[in-house]
């Protein structure tokens, strides 16, 4: 009879440990058979579209999703190919990506970081998504970008405007086509000074979270550099709905400009309240009181109605642009859905094409190969003129639009007019600029 140390409990324990080890999700480590996370092995490749399908930004999420579906159609050779015809890179052939038909799965971010991470994780782990894209909030973008970095997949950010996304929170696996708060300030300030004068006194109301802080910081710096004085900066809670008690104190100051660093419902309500309290009719020192909304969105402009008329702001793209790329995209989107696309739809469509193009040029879906193809990539024909995906921070550099609420709109979509296209040089900054300091891209992670 052999003497053994085996016991029933020991066997069970060992079995449980071994079982848990085998069952561990392979999300954070590439399996031994695959060279990288979710390497496509069949005839298809899966992309993950993570957009707000519920919550306050659901309408923007819906428009993003429409654009993604359009991009997938075009990549698979269906439809009129849209901006693939005008894109300066000719690597895309309309036969999917690297010959694999493009399929997609969707997730609902709910505009909540934890929900967005959970849906992205599910798409990577369960659906085998090789790339995640989307979002209509900087908080969500930063959270999902971090997850994708850990998981070893590429993250192509959607609508995120905070400096932090490609600043202190930038990641090697993350890329942003959308412009940022610094660029808004750099584009807007000269127009504000030219139209309203260089000796204005500004009062800021700012949404109290990462995007609002960087937006306020950027506009304050840009306007003060041109001679404006900042009278006060007041943080408003993100959950605020009635801004009257934040707006009335402005009447007691000598400020002659109100800057609303608000987005979404906050912007709609604060602007509506400001107009109700007569700020647009107010005269200070013989000059008209002015209101500025640094980040404009057509979908938000609809909510603000006629209050938006004459108000200056900035935007990443607008459907009224007449360049070949914009015209092709508006035609594709408008024909399919019956209305023009928003800037959120534009940036997500572009991101999908840019990702697919990078895969084709790299000859792989390996995120490190894709990242290398995107870094320093210069392109044109996607609606923003010549654009650079800067290698230092994975931020796109392109012209920025300064827009104004249209005085006499001809339709429910015709709400903004482009008053100036600010050249890219004017909005370019050093990678080590203090507003973007504190983070590092790190190493690309293939899983």
């Amino acid at each position, binding site marked *: 009879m052999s003497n053994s140390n085996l016991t029933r409990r020991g066997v069970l324990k060992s079995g449980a440990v071994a079982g848990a080890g085998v069952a561990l999700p392979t999300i954070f480590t590439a399996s031994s058979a695959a060279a990288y996370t979710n390497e496509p092995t069949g005839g298809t490749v899966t992309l993950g579209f993570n957009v707000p399908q519920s919550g306050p930004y659901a*309408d923007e999420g819906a428009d993003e999703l429409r654009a993604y579906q359009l991009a997938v159609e075009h990549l698979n050779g269906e439809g009129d190919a849209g901006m693939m015809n005008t894109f300066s890179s000719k690597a895309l052939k309309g036969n999917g990506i690297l010959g694999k038909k493009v399929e997609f799965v969707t997730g609902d971010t709910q505009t909540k970081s934890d929900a967005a991470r959970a849906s992205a994780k599910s798409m990577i782990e369960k659906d085998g998504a090789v790339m995640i894209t989307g979002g209509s909030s900087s908080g969500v973008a930063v959270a999902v970008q971090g997850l994708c970095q850990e998981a070893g997949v590429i993250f192509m950010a959607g609508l995120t405007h905070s400096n932090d996304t490609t600043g202190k929170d930038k990641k090697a696996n993350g890329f942003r086509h959308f412009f940022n708060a610094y660029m808004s300030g750099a584009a807007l300030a000269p127009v504000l000074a030219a139209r309203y004068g260089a000796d204005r006194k500004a009062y800021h109301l700012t949404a109290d979270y990462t995007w609002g802080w960087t937006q306020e910081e950027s506009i304050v710096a840009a306007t003060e550099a041109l001679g404006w004085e900042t009278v006060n900066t007041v943080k408003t809670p993100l959950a605020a709905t009635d801004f009257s*008690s934040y707006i009335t104190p402005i009447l007691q100051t000598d400020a002659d400009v109100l800057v609303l660093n608000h987005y979404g419902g906050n912007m709609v*309500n604060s602007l509506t309240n400001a107009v109700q309290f007569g700020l647009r009719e107010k005269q200070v020192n013989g000059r008209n009181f002015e209101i500025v909304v640094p980040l404009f969105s057509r979908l938000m402009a609809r909510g603000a109605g006629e209050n938006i008329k004459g108000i200056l702001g900035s935007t990443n793209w607008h459907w009224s642009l007449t360049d070949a790329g914009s015209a092709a995209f508006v035609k594709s989107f408008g024909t399919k859905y019956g209305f023009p696309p928003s800037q959120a739809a534009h940036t997500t469509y572009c991101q999908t094409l840019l990702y697919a193009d990078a895969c084709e040029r790299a000859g792989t879906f390996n995120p490190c190969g894709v990242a290398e193809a995107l870094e320093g990539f210069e392109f044109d024909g996607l609606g923003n003129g010549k654009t650079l995906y800067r290698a230092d921070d994975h931020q796109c550099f392109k012209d920025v639009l300064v827009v104004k609420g249209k005085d006499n709109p001809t339709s429910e979509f015709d709400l903004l007019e482009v008053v100036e296209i600010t050249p890219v040089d004017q909005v370019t900054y050093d990678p080590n600029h203090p507003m973007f300091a504190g983070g590092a891209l790190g190493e690309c992670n293939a899983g």
Partner: protein
Amino acid sequence: MDAILLQILNGLDKGSAYALIALGLTLIFGTLGVVNFAHGALFMIGAFCAVTLQRLLSLSFETVDPTKTDFLGNPAKIKTPYIESWLGPETGAAIIDWSVPLAILFSIPIMLFVGYVMERGLIKHFYKRPHADQILVTFGLAIVLQELVKHYYGANPIPTGAPDAFKGSFDFGVVLGFDPNLIIYPYWRMVYFAFAAVIIGAVFAFLQFTTFGMVVRAGMADRETVGLLGINIDKRFTIMFGIAAAVAGLAGVMYAPINSPNYHMGMDFLVLSFVVVVVGGMGSLPGAVLAGFMLGILESFASMNWIKDILPGIDQIIIYLVAIIILLARPRGLMGRKGVMED
């Protein structure tokens, strides 16, 4: 001084909304003993009654204008509201412009019906269940209602303007001897405050001076005895539920021009309104109104910059802080009655 006056005015319209919602909540709690977490959703449905009427009045037919093009370069389709075609451009446009006040009439039968269906279809099954069950089921109902509204109207706020006659603001400063443009108050907010005062007065008069109201008050005080007298108190309480729903709906209709309606506006008001009810005293109608205005004004004052400089974040917690202090000093709230929720 001018800043203080301005914040008092600000607090009045905010307080009006709190008071109207809290009044409805208290009516339901006082009569049926139900803690109705779907009451904010009724406020939201009221606001969307205004949106709906505006859309109905703006229903249009399309004609092609070959001289203009749409965003795709096709001949533009020009929309003309049917009402302008039928009644003439000026009359039609004026009716559309007055859609929010007209929505008061439009919303009353809708809200009474919604209230009736809500009470008969769901809430009556929870009368004898614990308050926790009532809160859960009505909160669930509120989420269902707001998701339905989001599905049909979208997630973005929908601009619903006041009539042109009430756009702009009144300069109280000039009247009171201050410099111009120091104490400005929008006309529509003044209308809202006056409207709230009329509705609150009407509810109190209805309860105080009508036989129906007298029976309801008797039922609130002693339901069992009123029932033993052969009066069908349940039926009257169901009607009161409908009236409470209508009050919340009317508060929502008139609020639409102040902040563009969106699907979660009810939730924004719900929690604060419950605090108002508790501070006022559970089941006390005058308490709900008093606490509504008091907390609205206090919230306004707490948003003043110099106060926030001394106490950062006070604007976010002032209502809850005051609620704690009042409940410590007066556990039944400002005007609460003995025996309510004390078993």
